[in-house]
């Protein structure tokens, strides 16, 4: 049942680091995070890794396994052969703090830049009425566990530090879509999605959708519909005229 697995784990900090080889016991049914924990308990007590729920619910244990962004707690050892060396590295898009732990503050900064839910002013608590079919679309996006794997994989920022200021990333563009599709939200978010949050950078490659552990259809259900809404608004002649007039007045 148990066997000796070969793990190659990146160790280091923001200054320097390298891949180190370990041999560690693996048992039936285990996931990569179990092996990392066994390493901590038996060989490298100061190996840094984030985790909480161990059940794919909190989005803490994000890293890259053989180069693919994954949750360590949901990556079964059984998908690898016993003689394979499994390489575990931190998410590449974010600065390393130590070992497998990265600085994900970029995401919290972006979260704060998205204007919040704006309910109708006259609606009192307890009076909200919405149909299941209408909330379902936004509910899909609210399944997001904020693992940031989609952010990690998106090529717009993966090796392009310079795009980080202008681009909110799939997770937060999806947040805009979620609010836009909220049955009771009264704000119009289309223009800002394009100008302030960088929707235009996304060229719908769907890489984000592929790595999402919650299987959210980020590209098809959030980003593409959002792009369509933006296009509708921008090319709507009345809005266009309105924008022009407003600008002229304002300037």
């Amino acid at each position, binding site marked *: 049942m148990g066997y000796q697995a070969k793990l190659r784990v990146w160790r280091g900090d923001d200054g320097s680091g390298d891949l180190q080889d370990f041999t560690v016991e693996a048992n039936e*049914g285990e996931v990569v995070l179990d092996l990392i924990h066994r390493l901590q308990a038996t060989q490298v007590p100061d190996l*840094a890794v984030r985790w*909480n*729920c161990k059940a794919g*619910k*909190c989005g803490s244990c994000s890293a890259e396994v053989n180069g693919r962004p994954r949750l360590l707690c949901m990556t079964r050892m059984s998908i690898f052969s016993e003689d394979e060396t499994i390489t575990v590295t931190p998410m590449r898009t974010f600065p390393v703090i130590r070992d497998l732990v990265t600085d994900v503050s970029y995401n919290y900064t972006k979260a704060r830049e998205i204007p*919040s839910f704006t309910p109708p002013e006259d609606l009192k608590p307890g009076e909200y009425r919405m149909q299941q079919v209408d909330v379902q679309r*936004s509910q899909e996006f*609210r399944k997001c566990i904020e693992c940031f794997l989609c952010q990690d994989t998106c090529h717009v920022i993966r090796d392009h530090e310079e795009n980080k200021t202008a681009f909110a990333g799939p997770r937060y563009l999806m947040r805009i879509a979620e609010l836009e599709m909220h049955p009771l939200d009264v704000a119009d978010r289309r223009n800002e999605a394009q100008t302030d949050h960088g929707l235009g950078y996304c060229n719908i490659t769907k890489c984000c959708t592929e790595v999402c552990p919650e299987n959210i259809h980020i590209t098809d259900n959030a980003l593409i519909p959002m792009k369509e809404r933006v296009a509708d608004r921008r090319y709507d002649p009345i809005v266009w005229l309105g924008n022009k007039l407003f600008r002229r007045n304002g300037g």
Partner: protein
Amino acid sequence: MTEVERHSYDVVVIGAGGAGLRAVIEARQRGLSVAVVCKSLFGKAHTVMAEGGCAASMGNANAGDNWQVHFRDTMRGGKFLNNWRMAELHAKEAPDRVWELETYGALFDRTADGRISQRNFGGHTYPRLAHVGDRTGLELIRTMQQKIVSLQQEDQKRYGDYEAKLKVFAECTVTELLKEDGRISGAFGYWRESGRFILFETPAVVLATGGIGKSFKVTSNSWEYTGDGHALALRAGADLINMEFVQFHPTGMVWPPSVKGILVTEGVRGDGGVLKNSQGERFMFRYIPDVFKGQYADNEAEADRWYDDADKNRRTPDLLPRDEVARAINTEVKEGRGSPHGGVFLDIASRLPADEIRRRLPSMYHQFKELADVDITKEPMEVGPTCHYVMGGIEVDPDTAASSVPGLFAAGECSGGMHGSNRLGGNSLSDLLVFGRRAGLGAASYVESLERRPKVADADVTAAARTAVAPFDGARDGVAEENPYTLHTELQQSMNDLVGIIRKSDEMQKAIDKLAEIRRRICGVTVEGHRQYNPGWHLALDLRNMLLVSECVAHAALRRTESRGGHTRDDHPQMDAQWRNKLLVCSVADSDEVVPDVTIAAKPQEPMRQDLLELFELSELEKYYTEDELADHPERKA
């Protein structure tokens, strides 16, 4: 002096779960400056894992529901040991707290007429749990996280800085509370990332640190649940109550070993899932205890009809309160009718169409598929009890959430009283909202009433820093070096085996001896490496909290010679009315020891207010109360 980063706030909330976030929102809305500190990243607190739902008698699914019914259910679930005032406030205020979340942007599942849908859960008379599939906790956390962002955006508009009045200190652990003349003056901790020390100067601290499950081997709880708030409060001079009551959730995963303990939501049973033993028998019908006789269906036909017509039929005993179900499973397994991996079967596959299962229980479907190779739409799950929740916690004033230490408040799982000897499912999320808000208010009023703010003494800061780095110094003379991971494993094993779901006096004594041994060895805990993101060091510091809290559990459990709710004794199997109104209070002596000695004392509860008592029929109360206590009941006097 040690280098320490200093901050000053009106209120510091320790914990960013449901209770903490709700307290933050309230205190900030009262105009105060607030810091929120948490061990994990923001948005990852334990609350995120809650699945089934949040109990509130909105009456959307059954118009017969109201606060009185909810109050009665809660008191019954806790076997009448609950702090009745907390149960009253909770039942009355929960609906408003849930509706409020919608104004923050929450999207609960809906009824056909567009209101919040409510689901059945164990011990609740009516479908009462507001929910979002089986990820309700995620919705709660995210909603409040986003509300906090919106408050920060308002501050940005007003002060030009998002963090002018409300700041999140994530991945930061508080290790010590500081006082001046008996009042809270600050909190001391370290950044997990850098290991650097941090000091909050504040007159008011709200503890919202969650539970203690990591003291047990099989648990649904994460590494965060090391009883920090419980221990911090004790060391600051506050009392803990009800620590002998630990909830073992009946349905945790049992296989594969690496996921043993991970929760299977009660929502599976709420939505029609049934428990079966290896002979295919729905065994729960044999386990309806006397106090619940008459309230539950005694045959399968009626139980099955209940899902569609709850008014004409009695509910299935699969949905008895958790302590009852957990004990029943334990007995089935012990008597040889368990599943291959030592649990029982939970079958939803034969009860609902596959599509419906995937729609209502998506994360359970996912969890079993990914982690156990089990398709729950085709096969039954294997489940068994897992340590889930601690009813015991910091004793607080129900209305203000104030502890006995001026300036110290507590809410959520780390507080005690509300759930008595056993918590009903869904009553925690609502508890977080109701008492999180009240703690925020309580702290705000306290701060506003102060004429002078207590000061932090430099000597206290130096001492706190010294204690924190002690594990790097190596073992003291004459004490052997210890690995924190090994010591932790030993502690978990003995709590699990000896102070677990079924308790016996000699076993608990053994556990107490073992804890005393760990107490001697803990001074030898030594860690390698440096202070930057060092999990070995973090565990070494958490370990002393786990030990202190485990001692409270073990000592209180040995003391209570009856069985009630989350405390079951083989040697005292009956519930004893003489024990009903007695609380066991844990406190520690003021000392510099790493782990101070625990004292346990019994004290009587305040009798229930007459109008609340009269919500129950005499015949029911007689099952729990002594004759003397019921002398004034109107049915008695009539």
